[in-house]
């Protein structure tokens, strides 16, 4: 019987959740088998971790070992005609687009960071800004391969019951080792992006709802500090694929994609320091106001942006989460049915004001109903919020999170495990199970 490796600190991306766990980092299928055998012989059940981009406790294990899957990251095959790529579960979306964009393909669904693994994306059934048109990533996965019982690889095709049991199952007993994903053929690597200002919550939701058929990508950046008649005001960003035109660059290279990422004239380390000084403070109020005001002044502006620059805002400032040490931060994403959304989000905003804990960054999206039984998305809207955890706000923040739980329970809403830092998913499940 081989011993477990020495324990290490394993953190969720929000840095609030942490576990002390032995970590295996298999670089091959055989090494993975060996790691699982070691876990089994020690009587411990491992948790599988991708790149650790879930904000909360999804990829930590307070009760035992963690198996980090990023070593299984080879592209195993690609069918140009169908666009189906078969790759190791540890391959990140970042590695994938860098590989696929020169071939004219782009992942059908991407998260706000490119540093998530395919396996993690499937286990969380992640969504992107095109949630209405494209659903969640599970909709585009042709098959997954599981290492069943630590020995044999079993391929599970889309549409089977076993497949339904894998997608969105963040506590899979057996690891996903390979994913076949149908990529999207793109004419160019650019999007036409339109930004408009929505003066209040009703306008925000109506704007997103109205744009969902004509635009592939639909997202709102909400200023949670606004109150009264401006409650829920947002900057809406909608985008469609930029068509190929004669004589224009097509943007199908990594260099062209990355060239569009601007953080302005301020160097990244200075921005990071600025974030550290302001992240937990009321200064974010002015940042939010400034963003809204700029969009008002700019009018209905249309710009061309690379897919990477539009999709991966979270990657503009690498290591930004470190600015939130020592307390870390938590995310909370409320998924609410369409007809309940306006009242529920109004309450969610009011609650923040009442408790004196206001999210410094808030994102609203339109979703279609999830097709998987472990799904979280529904025909409606989501509001993603983030809050730094400090000594002063701790009691109010957890009370706020529990009030959000109750709000979701009362309106038939859902919580999302990739963002869950305070056990809301489990609490909601328990409350619904008991009801």
């Amino acid at each position: 019987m081989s011993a477990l490796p020495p324990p290490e600190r394993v953190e969720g991306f929000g840095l609030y959740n942490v576990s002390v766990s032995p970590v295996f980092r298999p670089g091959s299928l055989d090494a993975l088998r060996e790691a699982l055998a070691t876990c089994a012989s020690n009587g411990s059940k491992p948790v599988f971790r991708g790149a650790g981009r879930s904000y909360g406790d999804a990829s930590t294990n307070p009760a035992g070992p963690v198996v980090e899957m990023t070593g299984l990251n080879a592209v195993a095959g690609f069918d140009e005609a169908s666009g189906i790529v078969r790759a190791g579960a540890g391959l990140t979306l970042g590695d994938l687009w860098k590989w696929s964009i020169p071939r004219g393909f782009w992942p059908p669904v991407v998260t706000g960071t490119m540093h998530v693994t395919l396996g993690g994306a499937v286990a969380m059934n992640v969504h992107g800004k095109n949630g209405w048109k494209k659903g969640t990533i599970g909709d585009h996965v042709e098959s997954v391969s599981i290492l069943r019982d630590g020995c044999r690889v079993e391929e599970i095709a889309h549409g089977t019951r076993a497949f339904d049991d894998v997608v969105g199952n963040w506590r899979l007993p057996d690891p996903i080792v390979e994913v076949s994903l149908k990529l999207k053929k793109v004419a160019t690597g650019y999007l036409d992006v339109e930004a408009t200002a929505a003066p209040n919550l009703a306008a925000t939701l109506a704007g997103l709802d109205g744009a969902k058929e004509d635009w592939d990508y639909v997202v709102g950046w909400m200023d949670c500090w606004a109150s009264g008649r401006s409650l829920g005001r947002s900057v809406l960003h909608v985008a469609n694929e930029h068509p190929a035109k004669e004589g224009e660059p097509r943007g199908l290279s990594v260099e062209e994609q990355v060239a569009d990422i601007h953080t302005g004239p301020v160097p990244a380390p200075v921005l990071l320091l600025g974030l550290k000084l302001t992240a937990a403070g009321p200064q974010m109020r002015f940042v939010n106001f400034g963003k809204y005001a700029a969009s008002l002044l700019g009018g209905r502006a249309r710009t061309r942006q690379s897919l990477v620059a539009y999709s991966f805002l979270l990657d503009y400032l690498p290591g930004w989460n470190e600015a939130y040490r020592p307390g870390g931060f938590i995310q909370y994403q409320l998924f609410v049915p369409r007809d309940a959304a306006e009242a529920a989000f109004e309450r969610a905003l009011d609650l923040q004001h009442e408790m004196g804990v206001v999210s410094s960054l808030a994102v609203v999206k339109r979703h279609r109903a999830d097709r998987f039984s472990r799904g979280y998305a529904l025909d409606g809207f989501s509001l993603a919020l983030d809050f730094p955890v400090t000594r002063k706000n701790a009691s109010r923040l957890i009370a706020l999170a529990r009030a959000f739980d109750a709000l979701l329970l009362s309106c038939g809403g859902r919580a999302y495990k990739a963002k869950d830092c305070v056990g809301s998913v489990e609490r909601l499940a328990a409350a619904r199970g008991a009801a």
Partner: protein
Amino acid sequence: MKRVILVGATDGLGKALAEVYAERGFWVTILGRSREKLEALVADLRGRFPVATVNGVVCDVADAARLEPAFHEAIAVTGHCDLFLYNAGVMHGGDGVTSVPALDAETMEVNAVAAVRLLGLAANWFRVAGRGQIGGISSIAGDRGRSGNPAYNASKAALSTFLEGLRNRLAPFGVTVSTVKPGFVGTRMTAGKPGLFWVAPAAEAARIIADRLEKRHEVFYVYRRWALLGLAMRHAPRFLFKRLGPP
């Protein structure tokens, strides 16, 4: 948002501390010997403080073989741990002149040896986690040996010194270690004892302790005036203690 594990919290000061943390909405995991008391307390706290996440782990600290599994169980149900507080303690009264070796040994076992075992496990966990806080409810009684209860004094002296060592060991890893010397607290332990003064009600003592732990104070008493007395105690000449009776 803190996640707190309390050892010995089904009674007295520990119970009051559990209430304070539950009231703040935190994660509270209680280790206690009696399953019935533990279950009743957990149910009570869950009912009164629905925002909090309250769990119990049955653990008799005198059962050495149970400590490591109980520690890991506590971490698993708490998710992670920001504060691990050792509060278990016994004080056997006596006639003040006769040693009862079996009871003295039990005092050392619960107040010191089990503390060393559990806090050692916690120290290893926190060192790797690179953050958080360990605390022990020690006592001003550990500052000097007194005629009334030498074993109790010795057990608390051992706990205080062990905590001091852990503090120095863990400082480079960003972990705080706090030694609490409450002074007299109105609990079953002190009930009916003569000659007490500056007695803090358990709920008030718990609130003060929680606040000062939050501020990461390292060695403190509940009422600050105890610090003066503590200073005097530590420096008083030996002959004085020969004339002083219990406690």
